[in-house]
């Protein structure tokens, strides 16, 4: 799966969680939770959707490595089977 495709999926999920936002405007190093006002319930939903879409099972202990778009892309490109 290409980085573009992964990004597309991430944006789709973020738009579902934060409908009023435009994730494509996120800078690669911007803290997503802060930028889109994501709380812990939103975050849980994000990881549920990510699991549904991409099949990745991200353990809670890894949440800290997924703060920005570029971190997510790095993490996911490694973990998608």
């Amino acid at each position, binding site marked *: 799966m290409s980085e573009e495709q992964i990004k597309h999926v991430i944006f789709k999920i973020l738009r579902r969680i934060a409908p009023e936002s435009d994730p494509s405007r996120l800078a690669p190093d911007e803290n997503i939770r802060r930028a889109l006002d994501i709380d812990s*319930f939103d975050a849980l939903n994000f*990881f549920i959707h990510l699991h549904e879409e991409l099949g990745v099972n991200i353990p*809670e202990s890894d949440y800290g490595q997924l703060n920005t778009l570029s971190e997510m892309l790095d993490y996911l490109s490694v973990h998608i089977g």
Partner: protein
Amino acid sequence: MPGLGADMVTGALVEWKVKPGDRVKRGDIIAVVDTDKAAIEIEVFEDGIVEDLRVQPGQTVPVGTVMAIIRTEAVPFAAEIAAAKEEKVLVEGTRKIMEIEAPPLAEVVIPSRQPLAGRAGRIKASPYARRLAAEHSIDLGALRGTGPQGEIYASDVESAVSAAGQESSKEAGGAPTEEPVPLVTKEKLPPTSPIAGKPAATDYQAAIRRAIAAAMARSNREIPHYYLQTRIDMSRTLHWLESENLKRSIKERILLAVPLIKAVALALGEVPELNGYWIDDRHQVQESINIGFAISLRQGGLITPAILGPDLMSVDELMEALKDLITRTRAGRLRSSEMTEATITVTSLGDFGVETVYGVIYPPQVALVGFGKVMEQPWAENGLLGARPVVTATLAGDHRATDGRRGAQFLDALNRRLQEPSKL
């Protein structure tokens, strides 16, 4: 039209979920009503058969208006007794949603010379009208004054109070005379049925702010708050949560809010004085624990619907309930009981990096529990200094109902519960 908030004066019917002839049982959702603040699902209080729907979708009626007639089992259909001489039989045997019919809005309100929209800015109300409104938690902004310039007089507030009074008098015996109402401060969702015109977002925002203003101003005016706070070592709870979540699929993972809510509920079991209301100069401790949980909304504002009986749920059940509640809150689909039955409020602002929460109690409740962010902090224990994840828990208590000692016992109980997460 039930009163879904002390500040609610009118409500608009969005849709009926039942039709005449339908059989309903207690707890069924029979209608969706749009208040100033949110679309609310209305539950029915009786088993019976829907006989007549008296309000049409899109219609706005004052609180207290009869919306439907529900026939209880013992009573024959209206058609069957049409021949019967006395209409009284119907009235007496039929459970009305409201006991007293309020006159239509148009009869209550004498149109003011000045259109409502032109009354921008300050609300002109007499001091006595203001006092009455404060005593009865009536939102002056929602009233239309009958004075020559649209001024609000005591009589205008009294009309609104009597309409609301008709509502509260119908509540089952033993229930508090003043309904506890969760803090409803979210942006109102646009009506889903063809209610004429779509009010501008600013109208919703103004209504929300007025709702917050009425409830919070009343709280700070009437409730002598005391505040206690304690730092709680969260290492055991977090460790337990982590290991529990490792056992679960992503979908079943538990949020930290769950052990926090559960611990509050169990601590309330030990210190029940904080679970209840202050009404009519009397402390009214409630037996069932219903925790109003502050849920923030993306559009701005927050809402505190009740989780009913979390003390009796397992953590998984509680997570399910919380997920369901948050989802429905954000979709604007709450049930009337969730809007009115909270006995205490819990607010967690940890997601936003806040360390300590000093809450404003939601009247007539007598306590609010606040949680901040879990932060790694230096922690001395048994003469050794280490780093622990620590949360600051605060209690805002109504000093009329309880004293600091009771509050301290509660925070102590809360701490103990969070040190034994496996028993949650």
